[in-house]
């Protein structure tokens, strides 16, 4: 188990950031979604042992969040959302220093800093002052400093913020590589659902300091039994007309047709109709809901509505 929290409550004076949060997530890449004020940052800080909770208990990587705070941080790498730098250092010094703060010997830290800067694509710029880096480079630098001590869990808070599309793609590819090929667990908090979908295999949706939904993305994106995605080899428009003429709802989607079946009809109805109209069906699949729908449905189920800054399907 990557982490589990049981009945965790955290209050800041009048504000209750976490309300009896209970969640259990397996190792792997976890996407953390939720509107602003959902308690995502407080949950991340709870996992890192940076805050004292008012009630509840939990473990991260099998370590108690109250008693093993430093050990948890030792086993964790954190890429914060805000722009933050160790002042006056070059890239290589920055990462080496982060390694030393994690307990690496100076020589080990410096050697490792070269390796991880190479991995994140900053090897050429490693002797430049970090405060002269672009936003994207600073994000990569923060990732390198979070990786320097080879954590078991990497927490990324809005890692693609401010990055250009190419840089974003590269960073997502790195996150995917770490999670899928290198066996590192990820907690990936992002407003960009395509980013989460590109990297994670599990998600947890938070709202109002509680868990609204969690599970494997593939499982959550459920089959919409009454809707089918149809792609034909030829005559797609004629086929759409034929379907409409028989009272079915048809909507062009991507390069196919999204067909809503009538009650009592099954997929075989479409096969029969295709045969009658002389259209060759290339694929016929039940439609699956998107991550955005999963997210919105989770919020709707909790009586919440997305706020500005909530996860969206838009790309950076």
């Amino acid at each position, binding site marked *: 188990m990557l982490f589990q929290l049981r009945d965790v409550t955290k209050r800041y004076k009048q504000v209750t950031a976490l309300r009896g949060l209970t969640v259990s997530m397996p190792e792997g890449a976890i996407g953390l979604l939720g509107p602003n004020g959902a308690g995502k940052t407080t949950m991340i800080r709870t996992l890192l042992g940076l*805050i004292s909770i008012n009630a509840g208990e939990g473990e991260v990587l099998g370590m108690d969040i109250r008693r093993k705070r430093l050990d948890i941080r030792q086993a964790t790498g954190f890429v914060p959302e805000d722009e933050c*730098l160790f002042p006056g250092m070059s890239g290589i010094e920055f990462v080496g220093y982060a390694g030393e703060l994690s307990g690496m010997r100076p020589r080990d830290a410096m050697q490792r800093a070269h390796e991880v800067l190479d991995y994140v694509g900053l090897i050429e710029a490693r002797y430049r002052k970090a405060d002269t880096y672009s936003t994207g480079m600073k994000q990569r630098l923060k990732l390198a400093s979070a990786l320097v001590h080879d954590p078991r869990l990497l927490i990324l808070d809005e890692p693609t913020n401010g990055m250009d599309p190419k840089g974003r793609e590269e960073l997502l590819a790195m996150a995917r590589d770490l999670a899928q090929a290198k066996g590192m667990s990820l907690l990936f908090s992002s407003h960009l659902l395509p980013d989460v979908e590109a990297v994670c295999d599990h998600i947890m949706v938070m709202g109002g300091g509680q868990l609204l939904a969690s599970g494997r993305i593939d499982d959550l994106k459920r089959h919409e039994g009454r809707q089918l995605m149809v792609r034909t080899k030829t005559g797609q428009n004629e086929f759409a007309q034929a379907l409409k003429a028989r009272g079915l709802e048809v909507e062009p989607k991507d390069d196919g047709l999204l067909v809503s079946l009538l009650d009592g009809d099954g997929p075989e109805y479409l096969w029969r109709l295709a045969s009658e109209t002389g259209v060759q069906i290339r694929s016929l699949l039940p439609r699956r809901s998107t991550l955005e729908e999963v997210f919105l449905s989770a919020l709707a189920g909790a009586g919440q509505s997305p706020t500005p800054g909530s996860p969206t399907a838009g790309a950076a």
Partner: protein
Amino acid sequence: MPVFDQGYQHWKGTLSGHAGRWLAIARQGIKAQLRNRRTKYLVIAAWTPALILAGFLALWGLFEQKADVLKPFMDVIKTILPLEIFEGPRTFRSSLWTLAFDAFLWIETGLALILVLLVGPDLISQDLRYNAIPLYLSRPLLRFQYFLGKLGVIVGFLSMVTVVPAFIAYVVGITFSLDWSVVQDTWRVLVGSVVYGLVVAISCGLIMLAFSSLSRNSRAVAMLWVALWLISGVIAGALVDSTRNRFDDPATAGKESERWWALSFGANLNRIREAALNTPEAYRQVVSAFQSAAAQAAEMAQGQMAGRNRGPFGLPFGPRNRPPATPPPPAHPMEPPQMFASRINPPFPWTWSAGILGGLSLLSVLVLSNRIKSLDRLR
């Protein structure tokens, strides 16, 4: 695409324990500050008094042994030193070592305050400016260790110019004395120097860190430090002068008014140094020896002028064939010359200074704790 792309590799080295993490901060801070040329030059310059101290202790060791190398200078030394010291230097060993270290540490304190001015302002203010605190606190590091690391930078630099050179000079002094009894006589000087060095480093360090946490602007922090150091001294001096005329008895006036020095940051450090080294006792012994020598010289001069009409202090030079001068009244052993009066009888107890410096340090800790909060808060 590189020809040889390793990709991400796991790391299999060993990590140190949590307790020593602050050392990384201190080490990095010292390394960063030593890149500043002015800091480097000041540290080097601060070693000059240490060389002089070591030289003095070495010479004193040779003088105690009446080493051959000093023979050509013995006559000159004899005219400078009172006979009591010249003939029994070991009796005065502890006092002269104390005064030498006192003078050394007095100079180093001034340099240390400048060094703190160069090294300290950036320590926390820059972290605030660059929002580095979350980076530190999300590592396996406690807030206390962060402060300790930053304090370690100042303590490191101040030790470089106080404790370390004092220790080396002490070792040099012992080496040249060729007498192990010197350790027995002077260990207190070394302990006092180390204690004083740590008091300066910790009190200055905590105060500077507190200042540094108050602003993101390092220049503003530097100005606060200068204000504490210089303005407190100026205010204390002004109060001493203005209250001196309130008392009819000049002796009481001096003593009472000089208590205002307790408001001066520098004077409090000096008072702690006097207590740590026990300089009043050393001054008393040495000044008393010089006073006795002066009185004897005056008596001899009076007798000899009546007879052989030699120069002052019985020396075979100086104005001759003049009418005998009125001998100076013999100095009372309890009344030292005015310039040493406050050294022998400090105007206020050292506990006042300890209380003031302790209070400032405690206040600094509270400021630090309040300004550099943990991440246990809403954004």
